[in-house]
């Protein structure tokens, strides 16, 4: 995963400086020609900051996103499910790594970004502040959360910033596998016992609305969408992506024989879209503000891992320093005979 619709900083109007205005114009012209912007190219400071914020939030989301699913690794109900889940959580850690690297090309270090996260100054996708209460939540996350993430992320493969776009190509391939395994897990549950079907329905009830909120505030309230669209950091508006997700996902729920927990959901024949009922944005705002069901636990877990690992990182640095000038350590005997 996992971008939530992320808004860029407000763009400053170009100053009166003529040369600056000309540079901005040339930059926008490159974007308009669909050229990729690369790390050494000139870019407006607001563009750089908007990207750093978006990529960092995305990276943090991957890393925090390891926690709710990691919660079920030790309890996976078969060995096959266990290895698939370990591999998936591992992929998320890997996505975090590529994304931190992409952010580093913009001149900010991974360590600094992690400090911001741990200090509570950086955001991550609020979906990970919801708990995984049953095994079916693992299916629902793959199906819905990764499904929503793919909707958000496929357009990012064409994002104007080269390193981010390239990272997204690889990430999207893996997300697509995650989404399929989540749906397959749900399918197994609905074809199982009554207790398993109940588990699957309850998971859909828990994850449906938070998944819709992953696309971010509605366009009417998203003040920065226009600039992000102009810079091609973003390719579609929040509401367009959300609608696309609803249109794809409702028939999938129907195929599973599950009920989408929205009494107002209906098919709009002339428009050829499913129309969802209103989203409770007060819940979204509360979770975003730190009052979701697991905000405290998620951040505490990250802080604890960071603190508990400090002596290990210090030891690795001390060892590297001691042996910096020395010959590289001969690999420990590896033969195996």
């Amino acid at each position, binding site marked *: 995963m996992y971008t939530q619709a992320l808004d860029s900083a407000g763009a400053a109007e170009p100053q009166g400086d003529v040369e600056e205005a000309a540079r901005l114009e040339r930059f926008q012209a490159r974007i308009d020609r669909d050229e990729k912007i690369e790390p050494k190219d000139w870019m407006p400071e607001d563009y750089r900051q908007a990207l750093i914020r978006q990529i960092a939030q995305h990276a943090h989301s991957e890393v925090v996103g390891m926690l709710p699913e990691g919660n079920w690794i030790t309890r996976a109900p078969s060995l096959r499910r266990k290895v698939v889940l370990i591999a998936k959580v591992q992929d998320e850690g890997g996505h975090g790594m590529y994304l931190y690297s992409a952010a580093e090309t913009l001149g900010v270090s991974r360590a600094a970004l992690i400090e911001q996260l741990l200090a509570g100054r950086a955001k991550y996708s609020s979906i990970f502040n919801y708990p995984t209460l049953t095994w079916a939540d693992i299916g629902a996350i793959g199906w819905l959360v990764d499904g929503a993430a793919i909707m958000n992320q496929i357009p990012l493969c064409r994002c104007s910033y080269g390193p981010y776009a390239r990272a997204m190509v690889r990430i999207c391939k893996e997300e697509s596998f995650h989404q399929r395994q989540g749906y397959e897990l749900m399918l197994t549950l609905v074809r199982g016992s009554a207790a398993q079907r109940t588990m699957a329905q309850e998971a859909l009830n828990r994850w449906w609305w938070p998944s819709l909120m992953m696309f971010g505030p509605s366009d009417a309230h998203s003040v920065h969408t226009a600039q992000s669209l102009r810079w091609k950091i973003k390719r579609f508006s929040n509401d367009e992506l959300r609608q696309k997700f609803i249109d794809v996902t409702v028939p999938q729920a129907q195929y599973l024989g599950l009920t989408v927990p929205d009494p107002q959901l209906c098919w709009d024949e002339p428009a050829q879209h499913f129309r969802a009922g209103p989203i409770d944005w007060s819940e979204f705002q509360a979770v975003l503000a730190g009052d979701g069901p697991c905000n405290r636990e998620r951040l505490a877990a990250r802080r604890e891992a960071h603190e508990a690992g400090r002596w290990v990182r210090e*030891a690795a640095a001390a060892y590297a320093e001691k042996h910096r000038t020395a010959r590289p350590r001969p690999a420990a005997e590896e033969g195996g005979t």
Partner: protein
Amino acid sequence: MSAAIAPERPHATAEERFEYTLRLADTSLVAGQRLAEWLGHGPALEEDLALGNIALDLIGQARLLLALAGRIEGRGRDEDALAFWRDAGQFRNVSLAEQPNGDFGQTIVRQCLLDAWQLETYASLAGSLEAELADIAKKAVKECRYHWRYSSGWLVRLGDGTEESHRRVGAAVQDLWRFTDELLTPDALDARMTECGIAPPAAAIRERWERRVAGVLAEAKLPQPARSHYPWHGKRGVHTEALGHLLATLQHLPRTYPGVSW
């Protein structure tokens, strides 16, 4: 002139082969389950990924070995029946594998001692007369080589890192050393498997393990503890308290909802 007739090797019973295969399978499963607990909580993202990789390898080995054990037993038990429906007393892993993760240093020491044993054991088992076991061992030995490189590399860095890391990892070696004798001392079943050409001779494994581990401890500037004589018998089903808790977590879902597919 009559040709010399080699004395025929004895044949192990299915029950003996089943028990021996479980020792290998359960050791990988339990160690993999332990490592999987780290995911999302490691000291750096790179370590989360590496520990996850090793867990995947170990659980992968366990799946192949449990399936083989099930075929040898011939009572229709598959990998999941064996993993989820045996109690602690029926698990045959060595006691070292089930020891709790503790801090990263304790995990590294546990893995290092175990990796050296698995690496030497699988390297020798690649020549086992039990053909399916030999095939699994040929694949496993490549994985174990990487596991050893990872854990021994970290043991050296922690041992020769800071004062704190040296102290922590030294304490972990002292603490876990008592479980190593079980790896290296053959019991009647191990001896029987060697006699039947299935398992490698224990004395050879001990020698190679000791050389390998002594080399790394020296490089890590850590003293080697004295040999401990308390006889741990995890491989005969007599475990430490830690295994029951590990299995309670591992097995709870299939046991709460018996008879369904996942």
